[in-house]
């Protein structure tokens, strides 16, 4: 399935392609050259910021453009790229399975068709009686998005900013420049004024510069990428999710199926995938049961429709191998007994597949808890009543399988726990208005009072 000619990708500013003299090759997970990417140096970012800011007026482009763009994104050939070619490129660039890429494209398109609904669900009413109302307006003019390549769906963050009237600068993840590029092509084709958007493949430092200069922004990435933005009011930092579960019930089949799906949905690549389980039950038993369930996931190349696990190219696989070896030094491996495969399987197509891995720790404050890896990876640790919510802090999602009401209440009040699920509910299937990590629409918009009769 390798393509003979790599995609040529370049910065795009206000509809203008800038053929950069600085090129950076992207190697796909099969070890093949996948794209030749023109890099935007900082000065090009300066140029893009100036150009977009000059014409940024804060007017929302209109929902119809996003609905049309959604159709084009899923169905049309854009810049010579068919939907199939797009999916193939993302799969080869990121190692995400073909199924994940197809589903995430559909998910992005569905969100684009319903941006009005998302906004309505996240904003309180604006009518305060005759002559008194509020309007939700953008908190600035320019929005910067610094993306990672773990999954295509985070692009919905900058789509929302664009929808509400921001002009947007996107620094794509280095392994998936394809998704934002295609979304932008679809939007412009659908009628978005080109000066509302810039696409800037670049070094992370250029992304940092964009975040500093823009009025609002979002950054996705590992701890190091997001650390400096953690307490910044104008930048939403989306680091490792560190989703946790507390298993304070009997680990029956229903619970174990639920935990396995929490860990393995979308190949474990989402920030909301489970990465730590705390339990009041025997740790080794729970870990064994979970390891047994996850070991059933098949070894398949990412292009196989039945594949569910991410693959990597050689260099990242080797890096991961070293990281796992270090983790095994202080944790107990439960997967080895159940999984017939090596921890890192070399596939015939040349890619490497990390197998699901369950490890256990001997204490609730073990430093390995909070490790987040891009495949089903779970550390199981003991939890006792006197530990309280301390080990459960710093979680994007906390799944509470417990009947202790007081514990649930305390978790809800804990600021570093961003979302609570109880029982066997999954965090990624929620109606509009259920915050993922705070109210994102209100991060983008602020209410402005409008007082007076409507005659003048």
């Amino acid at each position, binding site marked *: 399935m390798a393509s003979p000619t790599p995609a040529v990708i370049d910065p795009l500013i206000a509809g203008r392609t800038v053929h*950069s*003299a600085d090129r950076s090759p992207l190697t796909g997970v099969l070890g093949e050259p996948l794209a030749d990417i023109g890099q935007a140096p900082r000065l090009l970012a*300066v140029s893009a910021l100036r150009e977009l800011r000059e014409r940024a007026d804060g007017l929302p482009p209109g929902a119809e453009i996003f609905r049309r763009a959604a159709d084009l994104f899923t169905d049309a050939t854009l810049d010579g790229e068919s939907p199939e070619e797009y999916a193939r490129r993302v799969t080869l660039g990121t190692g995400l399975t073909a199924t994940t890429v197809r589903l995430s494209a559909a998910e992005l398109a569905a969100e684009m068709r319903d941006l009005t609904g998302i906004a309505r669900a996240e904003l309180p009413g604006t009518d305060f009686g005759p002559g008194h109302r509020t309007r939700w307006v953008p908190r600035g003019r320019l929005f910067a998005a610094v993306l990672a390549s773990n999954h295509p769906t985070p692009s919905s963050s900058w789509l929302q900013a664009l929808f509400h009237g921001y002009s947007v600068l996107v620094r794509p993840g280095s392994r998936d420049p394809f998704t934002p590029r295609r979304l932008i092509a679809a939007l412009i084709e659908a009628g978005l004024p080109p000066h509302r958007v810039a696409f800037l493949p670049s070094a992370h430092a250029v992304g940092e510069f964009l975040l500093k200069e823009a009025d609002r922004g979002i950054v996705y990435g590992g701890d190091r990428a997001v650390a400096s933005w953690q307490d910044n009011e104008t930048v939403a930092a989306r680091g490792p999710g560190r989703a946790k579960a507390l298993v304070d019930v009997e680990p029956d089949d229903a619970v174990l199926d639920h935990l396995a799906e929490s860990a393995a949905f979308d190949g474990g690549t989402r920030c909301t995938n489970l990465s730590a389980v705390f339990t009041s039950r025997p740790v080794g038993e729970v870990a064994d049961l979970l390891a047994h369930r996850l070991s059933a996931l098949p070894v398949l190349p990412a292009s196989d429709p039945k594949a569910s696990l991410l693959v990597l190219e050689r260099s990242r696989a080797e890096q991961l191998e070293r990281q796992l070896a270090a983790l095994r030094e202080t944790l107990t491996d439960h997967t080895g007994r159940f999984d017939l495969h090596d921890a890192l399987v070399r596939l015939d197509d040349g890619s490497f597949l990390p197998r699901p891995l369950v490890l256990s720790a001997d204490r609730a404050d073990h430093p390995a808890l909070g490790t987040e890896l891009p495949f089903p990876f779970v550390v199981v640790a003991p939890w006792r009543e006197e530990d309280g919510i301390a080990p459960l802090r710093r979680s994007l999602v906390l799944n509470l399988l417990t009947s202790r009401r007081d514990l649930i209440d305390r978790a809800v009040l804990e600021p570093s726990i961003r979302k609570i699920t109880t029982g066997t509910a999954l965090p990624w299937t929620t109606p509009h208005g259920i915050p993922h990590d705070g109210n994102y629409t209100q991060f983008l918009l602020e209410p402005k009072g409008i007082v007076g009769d409507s005659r003048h």
Partner: protein
Amino acid sequence: MTSDFDSRVRKSVAWHFDPDTGSPFWLGKRSGLGFDPVRDVQTAADLARFPDVSEELRTVPVPDLIPRGLRDKPFRVFESGGTTGAPKRIIDSEVRGRMLEWARDQLMDLGVPAGGHWLHLGPGGPHVVGSDVARHAAMGGGVFHTVDFDPRWVKRLVGSGRGDLADEYIEHLLDQAETIMRSQDISVLNTTPPVLEAICARPDLYDLLRSGIEAVLWGGMSADQETIRLLDEEFFPQATVAGVYGNSLMGVAPQRAAQPGDTHRCVFQPYPETTLVQLVGEDGHEVAYGERGRVLLHLVTEEMFLPNVLERDTAIRVEPAPGSATDGLADIRTFRSLGQGEIIEGVY
């Protein structure tokens, strides 16, 4: 053409290893060399026999560097940036002035105005560049404006993860530059790529500069190819934009006039009278034209003799311009795997 340099090598070796004219630094090394420099070193190629003594420039007492034959001349001492550790010291009396005269001609060929007033937003103090730029301005009868600029402080901030403070320091420098620009008529700006980027990101200062400036000179750090293009075409289209590569040890290598067939927008050329730059591969041999090699410097003057200095930079080797015997250097980049700890490039 190399024979010119060969004869300079012979003359220089004879001078530096004569007990009446040589420096205590080199005279003290003669017996430990394992060869007789005066007899055995006849050509530029023979310079490879010398050890790289540049590390010793970090600690040697400066008077030991002054050749006895020149002890009546006034000397100044300058220090390298300190990017790779403690700074190295060099001495200069007259040689650098001759090189700057030559560099001035090179820059004027590119369109840098002969006269006019200069603004230097770069290091001064112990760093030779500040003195160089002041002399450039004086040679054209212009006034030299500058601000206090401590690159080692910036490097310390960047190296310790305090990039925000480094940014603030740059803004402090730019505030002062803006004050100068508001009342003074500046024709030539000399600075570094990161400072230029910061200038371009500040609309008021940028507009002031863009409307009045005739030449923008950049140096001290590498700039990628797209950045050079943007400076030239987009940010300062009405001005001459020229790079000057160099450091304390090698001197300056200004951008040379573009030649037909150049694949790089900016090709640097060192001062042929005193400086031989070779680009070498891992085997120590010179790389072919169009290939990237690490900078190996030989400085041969009556004031300083520095053969075989392996620098932290790499560059693409470019054929000499017609009428010249000096190789060009393009697309300078820092040699990353240098063993002496992480190289921190700040703003200079």
